[in-house]
């Protein structure tokens, strides 16, 4: 049974992505008691699945290592993984949260040795790689996963794989009888940082993500470009495994569109500009990138990054929302149909691979939200006083890039601290 020691001076952080992790650490390093609740088996969220950051083209795991070290060493911080907040009652300075913890079937005796994974054989789509690769039924979600504890996929329960895993573990960490449990504890303030999910590309019917193998999403492309990813960093066509050289990037795939996401997701332009660097890095002058856009929205100070990409002769820009994608029956090449709106130039351009710059859909569901909270029509939590002691951090508040999300989360931590300090003040 999981024990959570908390008081109404404790700060509850919901979501352990870069925003939640930051808010939790900043508060904990200021001496506050923090409980972090994360749905996945590990913290770090979506940044763990990115190959590089714009504009420095540095590695997300580099900062993740520091943050995880901070987390490991800080006694003020409690992390609950595979956990979801199901209910919050009370008001600022005195909340009671209920948290559902799903069984991991591996307890904290786990040493991360990996014997269980070696013992089992069944394979499953690897969600960490957006299904581009496979993983075992006993697995460490990714190499730097924190906590460094393996997970048993419920799908192998009752199969002999489960028993194999259990017997393989010398630490006695595999506990197949682990049950789902619900714990409830107090909190003075809540930082809501449940982040975002990539917009479901299947819904963008004209682009045929569900029909054409060589149409993928930008988040999948991140995994593909990563040398430690499922393709070993090779940029390939799913249809035939051939190297993709002539790549199209379609901006606003789901964003700025009343049929999909009403808002501009802010990051997709910079993300695509960054991804043209991947193409250049992998293929040199062999690799050609074409960006189909409505407006290029490089982020203020990063505008010079856009300038450098513009100067790259291997990258071209077409001001056009692509109307539809069809497929060349002979070679499975996607054919992009549309009109370059600067002047009037129709095109039917054939590419090896299409990357849809899918938008950010906030992972905030008004219908299932545990408390009554002000959410705008795009689904982001408003900075409203009515929200009491609940503060949105990162992409729960707006479509933000990592840098802005962390910045915003740091501020959210302070706002939570303001509440618990008031409580401390009144309680002496």
């Amino acid at each position, binding site marked *: 049974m999981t024990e959570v020691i908390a008081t109404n001076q404790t700060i509850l952080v919901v979501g352990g992505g870069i925003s939640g992790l930051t808010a939790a650490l900043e508060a904990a390093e200021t001496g506050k008691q923090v409980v972090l609740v994360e749905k996945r088996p590990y913290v770090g969220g979506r940044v763990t699945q990115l190959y590089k950051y714009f504009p420095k083209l540095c590695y997300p795991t580099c900062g993740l290592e520091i943050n995880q070290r901070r987390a490991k060493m800080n006694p003020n911080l409690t992390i609950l993984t595979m956990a979801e907040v199901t209910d919050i009652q009370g008001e600022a300075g005195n909340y009671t949260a209920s948290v559902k913890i799903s069984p991991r079937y591996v307890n904290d005796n786990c040493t991360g040795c990996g014997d269980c994974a070696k013992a089992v054989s069944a394979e499953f789509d690897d969600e960490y790689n957006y299904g581009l690769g496979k993983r075992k039924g006993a697995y460490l979600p990714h190499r730097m996963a924190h906590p460094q504890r393996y997970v048993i996929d419920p799908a192998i329960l009752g199969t002999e794989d489960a028993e194999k895993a259990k017997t393989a573990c010398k630490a006695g960490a595999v506990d197949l009888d682990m049950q789902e449990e619900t714990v409830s504890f107090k909190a003075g303030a809540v930082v809501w940082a449940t982040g975002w999910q990539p917009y479901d590309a299947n819904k963008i*019917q004209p682009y045929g993500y569900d029909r054409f193998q060589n149409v993928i999403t930008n988040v999948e492309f991140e995994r593909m470009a990563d040398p430690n990813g499922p393709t070993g960093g090779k940029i390939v066509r799913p249809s035939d495994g051939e190297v993709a050289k002539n790549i199209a990037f379609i901006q606003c795939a789901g964003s700025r569109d009343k049929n999909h996401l009403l808002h501009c997701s802010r990051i997709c332009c910079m993300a695509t500009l960054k991804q043209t660097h991947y193409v250049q890095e992998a293929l040199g002058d062999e690799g050609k990138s074409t960006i189909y856009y409505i407006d290029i929205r490089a982020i203020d100070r990063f505008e010079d990054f856009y300038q450098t990409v513009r100067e790259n002769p291997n990258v071209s820009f077409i001001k056009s929302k692509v109307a*539809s994608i*069809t497929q060349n029956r002979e070679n499975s090449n996607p054919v992009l149909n549309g009109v370059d709106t600067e002047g009037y130039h129709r095109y039917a351009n054939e590419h090896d691979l299409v990357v849809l710059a899918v938008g950010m859909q906030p992972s905030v569901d008004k219908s299932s939200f545990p408390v009554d909270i002000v959410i705008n029509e795009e689904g982001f939590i408003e900075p409203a006083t009515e929200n009491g002691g609940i503060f949105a951090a990162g992409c729960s508040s707006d479509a933000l890039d990592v840098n802005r999300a962390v910045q915003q989360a740091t501020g959210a931590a302070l706002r939570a601290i303001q509440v618990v300090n008031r409580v401390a003040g009144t309680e002496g």
Partner: protein
Amino acid sequence: MAKKEVSYYPGCSSQTGASSSNMMRATQTMCDELDIQLNEIPDWNCCGASIGYGGGGELPRLTLSARNIALSEQHNPGQEIIATCAACWLSTREAKERLHEDANMFRDANTALNEINLKLNNQTPVRHMVEVLVEDIGFEAIKAKVKKPLEGLKIASYVGCQTNRPFGIAEESFENPVYLDHIIESVGADSIPTYEKKVQCCGGALAFSEPEKSQEMIHGIIEAAYDHGADLIATPCPLCQANVEIYQDQINARFGSKFNMPVVYYSQLMSVAFGRNSKDSALDGQIIRAKSLEDIAGK
């Protein structure tokens, strides 16, 4: 299956001796088999179709459909209006919705209707026949009715524009609706899931005025069907059927092709599969005869 009564709006081209009178016959047969009773809207008028815009203004066009809905509400109370023609369905449903959203427009339409002592309540659902098949009857029930499965027939499902957009059938995708493929499979034939001209416009509106433009589109539609090895093209839309079928000679002349592709209605597929003869299935209404269907119907 309990008998289903609907207020039926056939439309001009379904009248005897008109370009899709064959559809009318096949539809009737299909409905008999499925126990659907078609109560024609008395004295219905033309919907104005989309092309009407050049002549009639917005309100006059809406009023045309308003009259039909009003008549239906008066004579076939409580019955859904069902159309089989894409244009009729679209114009009528569009009118219903526009008059629903725009109070002034609704008032003005009623003022006009008042001239002939009609009143529009605008409470009647306006649906397409295939919605009834897909949503009310269902593919399983259709399968159950099949006596002569259309085995071995490869059929390209050509949905066209107006049956599909802007409303769509049963919330299906505009880009790749599959209900027609399901119908084709339900009657035992093979559909062509990758048929890429499925929702391509046939240029019907320009067939008379700018044939070279519309026939270029039709050419693409038929060519793709041949590329996929189709024996037939099936469609729910009378404009599509006529356009794609009757101009093939002219297209062959224009493009040097040798097209001779039968184009039939889903209702014809069904009545044949349900075991009805060529006449009931209106196969004699083909300009390019659907031999393969006739053979099955003849058996």
